[in-house]
């Protein structure tokens, strides 16, 4: 399915994210109509904000070792917390993991009927989604949850792909709870080799994920196997930086897809809008 329109949604907590630049990039690569919108739930605000807060709170993962199911009842603090976040999405809360697919379902339900077909929605969010992996029976944080709508997580870009191996070896020697200063020093030692909070490279990295989100409904393939392609699913930060910044390009196969998109449905080149 080639979307007739792509909507990108702002993450107001990500100060180094330039969404218009990402929109320009997606437009240049695909020649699709791309528009920028404010934060997702500010744009698609349901009348019952408490109800939305309750639904989101129910997706919060509390046990990393078990697949999450919606709890039969929710403690009010969790709902109040989500309500505050909905009212002030400029706040960034590290360390809360949500079940990615349940969360995506809530985003999907908020879309108006007119925008449910042939439209790609890419919600850039600070919420950190995770998916349960049956192979090792635990949750893993994700930078992107592809589908409808796609969620690109600015927290996930930092937290999900693993940092260099040496970083974890050195980190193991620290009691992190008591040694934040030493932890910061360790991060400085590895500076540049992973995407950190408020990283100036966030826009470059996020634009690759935005392309993944747009290409998925077109090709039906979630990721590319080519490590040099921006659609590559990086498991390590170094792979991520290589694919998105050092390479920054589509592989030959996906370049052809992009060329076909730019040529338009009947092969005639369309003017980007």
């Amino acid at each position, binding site marked *: 399915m080639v979307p007739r329109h792509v909507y990108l949604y702002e993450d107001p907590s990500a100060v180094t994210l330039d969404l218009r630049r990402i929109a320009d990039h997606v437009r240049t690569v695909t020649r699709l109509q791309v*528009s*920028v919108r404010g934060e997702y739930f500010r744009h698609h605000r349901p009348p019952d904000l408490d109800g939305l807060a309750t639904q989101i709170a129910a997706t919060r993962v509390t046990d990393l070792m078990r697949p999450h199911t919606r709890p039969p009842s929710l*403690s009010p*603090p969790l709902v109040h917390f989500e309500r505050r976040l909905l009212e002030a999405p400029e*706040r960034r809360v590290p360390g809360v993991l949500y079940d990615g697919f349940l969360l995506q379902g809530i985003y999907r339900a908020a879309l108006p009927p007119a925008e449910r077909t042939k439209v790609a929605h890419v919600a850039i969010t600070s919420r950190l989604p995770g998916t349960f992996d049956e192979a090792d029976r635990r949750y893993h944080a994700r930078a992107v949850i592809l589908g409808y709508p796609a969620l690109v997580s600015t927290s996930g870009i930092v937290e999900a792909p693993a940092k260099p191996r040496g970083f974890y070896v050195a980190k193991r020697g620290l009691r992190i709870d008591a040694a934040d200063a030493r932890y910061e020093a360790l991060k400085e030692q590895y500076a540049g080799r992973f995407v950190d909070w408020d990283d100036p490279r966030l826009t470059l990295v996020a634009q690759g994920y935005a392309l993944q989100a747009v290409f998925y409904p077109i090709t039906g393939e979630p990721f590319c196997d080519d490590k040099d392609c921006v659609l590559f699913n990086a498991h390590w930060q170094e792979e991520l930086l290589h694919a998105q910044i050092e390479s920054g390009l589509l592989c030959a196969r996906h370049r052809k897809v992009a060329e076909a998109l730019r040529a338009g449905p009947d092969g005639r080149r369309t003017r980007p809008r």
Partner: protein
Amino acid sequence: MPLFQPASEAEVTRAILKGFTRDLERYAESEVVVVGGGPSGLMAARDLAKHGVEVVVIERNNYIGGGFWIGGYLMNTITVRAPAQKVLDEIGCPYEEFSKNLFVTPGPHACSKLIAATMDAGARIQNMTSFEDVVIREENRVGGVVINWTPVQALPHEITCVDPIALESELVIDATGHDALVIQSLEKRGLAKRIGEGGMWIEKSEDAVVEHTGLAYPGVIVAGMAVCSTYGLPRMGPTFGAMLLSGRRAAEEALKLLKKGVPAATKLPEARAKPVARKR
């Protein structure tokens, strides 16, 4: 010639009694009751009192300050990370920069300054007073706390059958540390549930504590380490910045709920101000 002027025993007794009852009468009905006199509770009470809010701190121990007197491993140097050193500036507590963005100060100095600043701002402190329960209002909203003398709780029930008393308030701040006693009392009624201090892998637990601080239940704000057990956040080591700034955030949230403005001078930086994207 004696150094001190004469005062009879009876006069001293009357002075204690009158001073105490005058205070108790005042805070029998407050805008905010802070349960727990540790760093987050004191910080919240100070900021609220500075903005003219009637606030009383309930502390079960004789001493105020909770763990703020001592750093880690009974060593009384405490640490805060930037930007929490600005609070030390505000209360006039000197400190040194130990390493980049990490500051140290003697616990007794910081703690005594914070207690003094809290009282100077106009907050009242009721020590040796234990929180027993919440006052429940319409629709299960919390409208105050039930308290009793701490020694009553420490003695066998058979010889100390002393009924508690209640303080009414518009808001209660649970700053009772790991126990989260106010939330626990709601849990006993099936009205809330603590997730317990959790085992997420997060590295920025101090940020998470501050950002989770706020209204947790109608009438109840959680602050400090009580936030960790309420929301399942990891416990932290002996660094106090999050406690101070969580207290400040609790005060900000309380001021909003009481519909009183938060002056920019003391306001925590709003996470980030970023323009909302224009529609295209």
